[in-house]
């Protein structure tokens, strides 16, 4: 069956791939194959696809620590992501970065960041590059409601507005900065109003409805492309704990039930109303992610001497291993 407009179906497919991917990340941890437990799942936040769908080839972006879904939506290879999360050489960053530091210059991913707000100002610089080189590239900073507390966001929004840069600030409000609900961290929760105060075009959309996000994001992203920087809040719910080990004891079962009912995948299924087709898509996603996980687990860890690579540009000497330095001292003293 075909739809008059295939895009909503494609968005559903991307959202399903994200969710299935994140479920596999959880399994990777349970199998003992992940590098550590600093794994922040974006389940419940898949409607970000409504914004990323307005991004084009060449556009750049930075993400926070909960950025797996965003990167998948921008074309990431799930196997290389899982390999990175598992600390394997085949990963996007050769096992140096992990879940919180995935990047891929080719796909425009300038880096996931584990410092809250850390990657936000980088899009201002990318915007300067776009302006100075005369491209139509947009750069998007993705962050959470926790990032709304960081001063550097306001510095960056001010610069973007001042210099009319092709930049979008996208706050995926999942209601929690770690264990602190947004009503315990924000004096006034109208985030778009903050952005508007700086001179940005701002919008807020229901994160349980990817089509609503898509509609609202159009003017924001296209406006930015034309030199009117924007801000987008996606109102979502973090289905799971902060990281893999967090069982969210700070929230009630009732709240979680209500929050998880705001499920962008369920909303899309209802709207697309073709269970057979959607089930096929789901099955394809399962198969894809199973294969990706199997391949990632089978991949080899990096050789230990690679730890000295890429501290500096490879054209310059790598840091000297400690054992070599000590061996020199001992030899001279012998």
């Amino acid at each position, binding site marked *: 069956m075909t739809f008059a407009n295939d895009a909503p179906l494609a968005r559903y497919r991307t959202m399903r791939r994200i969710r299935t991917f994140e479920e596999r990340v959880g399994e990777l941890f349970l199998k003992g194959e992940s590098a550590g437990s600093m794994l922040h799942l974006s389940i419940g936040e898949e409607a970000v696809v409504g914004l990323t769908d307005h991004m084009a080839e060449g556009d750049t972006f930075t993400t926070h620590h909960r950025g797996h879904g965003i990167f998948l939506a921008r074309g990431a290879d799930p196997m290389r992501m899982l390999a990175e999360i598992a600390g394997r050489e085949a990963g996007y960053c050769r096992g140096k*970065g992990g879940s919180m530091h995935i*990047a891929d210059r080719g796909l425009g991913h300038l880096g996931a960041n584990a410092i809250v707000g850390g990657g936000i*100002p*980088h*899009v201002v610089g*990318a915007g300067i590059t776009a302006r100075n080189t005369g491209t139509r590239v947009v750069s998007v900073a993705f962050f959470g409601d926790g990032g709304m507390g960081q001063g550097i966001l306001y*510095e*960056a929004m001010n610069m973007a507005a001042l210099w009319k840069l092709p930049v979008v600030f996208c706050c995926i409000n999942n209601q929690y900065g770690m264990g602190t609900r947004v009503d315990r961290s924000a004096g006034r929760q109208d985030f778009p109003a903050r952005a508007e105060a700086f001179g940005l075009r701002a919008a807020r959309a229901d994160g349980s409805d990817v089509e609503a996000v898509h509609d609202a994001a159009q003017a924001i992203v296209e406006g930015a492309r034309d030199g009117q920087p924007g801000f987008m809040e996606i109102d979502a719910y973090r289905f799971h704990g902060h990281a893999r080990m967090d069982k969210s004891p700070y929230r009630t079962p009732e709240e979680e039930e209500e929050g998880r009912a705001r499920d962008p995948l369920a909303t899309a299924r209802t709207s697309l109303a073709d269970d057979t087709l959607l089930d096929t898509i789901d099955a394809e996603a399962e198969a894809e992610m199973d294969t990706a996980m199997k391949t990632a687990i089978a991949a080899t860890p990096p050789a230990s001497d690679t730890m000295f690579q890429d501290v*500096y540009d490879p054209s310059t000497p790598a840091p000297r291993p400690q054992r070599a330095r000590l061996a020199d001292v001992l030899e001279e003293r012998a």
Partner: protein
Amino acid sequence: MTQTTYRDALLQALLDAMDADETVILMGEEVGLYGGAYGVTKGMLDRFGANRVIDTPISEPAIVGAAIGAAMTGLRPVAEIMYVDFAGMVMDQLANQAAKSRYMFGGQIGVPMVLRTQGGTGRSAAAQHSQSLEAWMMHTPGLRLCMPGTVSDAYHLLRDAMRQPDPVVFIEHKGLYTMKGEIGDVPDAPWGQPAIRRRGGDLTIASYSRMLQETLTAAEALAPEIETEVVDLRCLNPLDDGPLMDSVRRTGRCLIVTEAVTTCSVASEIAARVSEQCFDWLEEPPLRLGGEDIPIPVSPALERASIPDARLIEDVARWLVAREAPSWAA
């Protein structure tokens, strides 16, 4: 050859780099219309326009952050932080972002930017505008660090810094801007290596930035009884210590002179390396001579007394070589 100032040598380096490469941009507080807090970038806004000489709001973290993003996407930004003391504002962007991006991202994304700033005492600028914070930068793998102590290095090290594929912190000294000298046709030493500023067989003194000049004055006063070898470390991170160790093995004595607070300083690191690598050659322990372990006081008398000068360097050198105890050690 014509004499110029440290300040104009820096300006010349920026002009030449921006003429040669249109991806080079300047950004920072007061770099444009004002011409730079110490006048280094005077005239650059008129010459290159506001897209390349960018006056920023007073937002140090985002200045560095924006420079990082510009560097990641193909420009060669020179960001300016007016005083190195403001490093406290920018250390996340510097140490967690600029320094680590190449590594965290598996070598894919370099950050070819220069962070120009200035530090040091000499203007009674008090505790938050007079520090020497190079150890913070040296303690961070992924950053490069250089500190020019001569007019020629002000030009050549800045040109070299702007060609590096990695982030470079470039710390000028506020007390050197009016110093006169010549810009050599070629650098005094290759990028990343120390320069031997004076030859001598009795004692090695390692220094950099303004203390290099104090050290050279002391060395002149010590001659001919004590012949001092003066090693200008210039590029501190990564530090090529080979020429320094060669020198100490010849002289058997090493004094390290800096302006920074002494505890956990560059001088401490050098002393540790000399101890490890030159143990059998040393006649005396390597000595650190640095700033007192105090915040910088504003009173000129106190400020002067809190850091080494040529006279103190001379005292310590005579003690190390000739066992002449200075009056304050009696």
